[in-house]
């Protein structure tokens, strides 16, 4: 990330949101809201002094509420650029007008409480979507696991923060409820994944591996500890993945094939009742902490940004690739590419591969002076076109617009509007040809006459 920030050809627009996207491949016009940071990044050196003295502390989003952060903060330690923003919702100065400790302390005078949002419009040749994922909200679906009322039933992401040396516990695995070290940890896989009744139909793909890692971390970091993993299947298709899983097994993690049907509290233990389907018996584990491998879901608002940019999503809300096997990095919209979990659940190596692929696709696009497109595109017979514009909203690729046309009629020059297809954007779907009332639009290679001839040949 640091390398990207320092690259002369890369401009980072952090803390910014895309509001509108117009134009097309090679010439997107993007309206961007640069949100008020209340810190002048030209002056700020990133020393971090302000963060140490801010008196308002709120739960840290990055630590999933396990720790606190000040209201002038960097989202996480390795954030790029390594400069803070002020959380306007919680900042004492911005809320009540009193405080301003950060401004007094800042040695370069970078804090500016008068900062305002700025909206800019820039042109781009291509867009790569990389909006990532969120975790399935298990608290709303899994009553048998307590609907989130037990603080020691956490998700894999919480565990990740607990075991991280820069995390809220300094890398010690401790129970959120009382800060004690858990001796028995139960892991439950497929919470929300592969569960049509309560969650999602699909497999979230990364959980088998991170659960194996977490189970190993428990055994590794906590002396005399036990790790139990309830699973439906162990799916480890990847280079050195199965070896890793086997090492976790060999080092003492207990894998139980079955689902946990209920978690309840007895004293300070969480009793996990489930089934070991390999021995055909009910089992029950008294755990100190339970870690749920929750399903990956498309990130919140990813659907909104997809409609702003202008491409499709699939039935689960993941960004729709142009072809599941042959064009997994492209969307159906020319010049818009996909990278990472926004397209579907994936782990880090897969994300890096896809992101690299998307980058190269963009380079390939930019390396040519002219663009090759599919010849099967719509064309407008301007003599027939009445300019009714029915085709414009029909086009899923925003490829049709009305253009003025001058022509002579009854000895006078008149101007009227006709539809015009941008052949760079048209994907040849044919929606406009069906919508066109005067029959002015046809799809090259699949004209209405050609299709009627085919029908005749078949039927007559």
């Amino acid at each position, binding site marked *: 990330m640091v390398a990207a920030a320092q690259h002369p050809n890369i401009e980072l627009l952090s803390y910014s949101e895309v509001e509108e996207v117009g134009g097309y491949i090679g010439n997107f016009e993007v309206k961007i809201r640069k949100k008020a940071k209340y810190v002048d990044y030209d002056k700020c050196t990133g020393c971090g002094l302000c963060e140490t003295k801010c008196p308002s502390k709120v739960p840290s989003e990055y630590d999933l509420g396990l720790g606190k952060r000040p209201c002038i903060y960097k989202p996480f330690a390795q954030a790029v650029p390594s400069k803070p923003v002020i959380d306007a919702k919680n900042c004492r100065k911005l809320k009540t007008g009193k405080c301003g400790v950060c401004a007094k302390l800042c040695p370069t005078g970078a804090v500016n409480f008068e900062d305002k949002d700025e909206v800019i419009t820039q042109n781009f040749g291509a867009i790569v979507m990389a909006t990532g994922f969120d975790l399935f909200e298990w608290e709303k679906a*899994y*009553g*048998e696991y307590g*609907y989130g009322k037990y603080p020691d039933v956490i998700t894999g992401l919480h565990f990740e923060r607990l075991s991280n040396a820069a995390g809220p516990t300094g890398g010690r695995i401790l129970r959120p409820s009382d800060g004690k070290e858990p001796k028995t940890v139960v892991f439950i896989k497929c919470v929300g994944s592969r569960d049509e009744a309560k969650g999602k139909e699909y497999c979230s793909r990364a959980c088998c591996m991170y659960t194996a890692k977490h189970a190993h971390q428990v055994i590794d970091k906590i002396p005399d500890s036990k790790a139990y993993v309830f699973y439906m299947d162990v799916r480890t298709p990847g280079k050195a993945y199965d070896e890793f899983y086997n090492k976790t097994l060999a080092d003492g993690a207990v894998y139980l094939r079955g689902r946990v049907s*209920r*978690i*309840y*509290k*007895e*004293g300070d233990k969480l*009793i996990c009742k489930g089934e070991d389907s390999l021995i055909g018996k009910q089992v029950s584990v008294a755990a100190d902490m339970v870690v749920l491998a929750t399903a990956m879901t498309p990130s919140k608002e990813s659907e909104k940004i997809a409609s702003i940019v202008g491409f499709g999503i699939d039935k689960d809300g993941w960004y729709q690739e142009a072809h599941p096997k042959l064009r997994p990095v492209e969307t159906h919209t020319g010049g818009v590419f996909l990278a990472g979990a926004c397209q579907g659940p994936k782990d880090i190596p897969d994300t890096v591969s896809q992101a690299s692929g998307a980058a190269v696709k963009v380079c390939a696009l930019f390396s040519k002076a002219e663009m090759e497109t599919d010849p099967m595109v719509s064309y407008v017979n301007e003599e027939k076109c009445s300019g009714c514009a029915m085709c414009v909203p029909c086009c899923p690729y925003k490829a049709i617009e009305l253009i003025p046309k001058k022509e002579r009629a009854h000895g006078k020059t008149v101007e009227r509007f006709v539809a015009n297809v941008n052949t760079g954007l048209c994907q040849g779907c044919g929606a406009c040809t069906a919508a066109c009332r005067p029959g002015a639009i046809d799809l090259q290679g699949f004209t209405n006459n050609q299709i009627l001839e085919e029908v005749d040949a078949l039927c007559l």
Partner: protein
Amino acid sequence: MRYAYFPGCSLGSTGIEFGTSNKLVAQKLGLDLWEIPDWNCCGASAAHLTNHTLALALPARNLAIAEKEGLDIAVPCAACFARFKATAEAVKASEETKKKISSIIEMDYEAKGEVLSLLDVIGKKISVEKIKANVAKPLTGMKVVSYYGCLLVRPPKIAQSDDPENPMVMDDLMAALGAEPVDWGYKTECCGASHVVTKPMVGKQMLRDILYNAQANGAEAIATACPLCMLNLDMRQKQINAKWGTNFNIPIYYFTELMALAFGYSFKDVGVPRHFVPAEKLLQDVFSRTGARREGA
């Protein structure tokens, strides 16, 4: 508020105090329970293991009588409720089933009326204020766990309770009586039903686990809405103690018993002396605590 009422077999026999207390509570709350005339067995357990059509036809006859009267139906027993509700849902879902069942029972039945458990009628159709207004002797500080068992909440698509995993209707009722509802893990676990008879070791172990979890969470009593749960939990504690060397002595009450008592009826009116585990002492203590507190205040 008028409902058709189906007492079923238990409420005149093993669950007689459920029947008695239901009537007392209904009277106080202005709930008119119209007992279905000439009702027949709901067919629970036996019928649906024997013949699917029979299992639908038996409750359907009772439902048809209620429908003729134009009433929704309140069913106190969990097993009866499950059969009634399953029949209503099956008839609603299929025109063919409706015709078949109507011809068997020789009555029209269109599943127009709502089938509710008595727990849901009292907990959802009657306002908390009305219940609170009737409380003469609050159960202040009585730590009680609510036990729903299986058939009041499962299968979720049929039972349509407030929440199949964590129902709260009875808990809220207990709170309205002044008691302290205790959260626990066995709210919707199975009591073992007739396993206690056919496979005693399996059944008793299930009961032991329920009693243990109630005790571990600090409950003084268990409230239930099902005559079979009541029977199992109340009658088997001695045997469980003998088998596992435990010391369970937890009074079990129907939720309507606790309501009737809180509304001011005597132990005898309600039928509390019929219980296997002595159930009067705890309530005497609760009432005296309340009294003491009142005097103190």
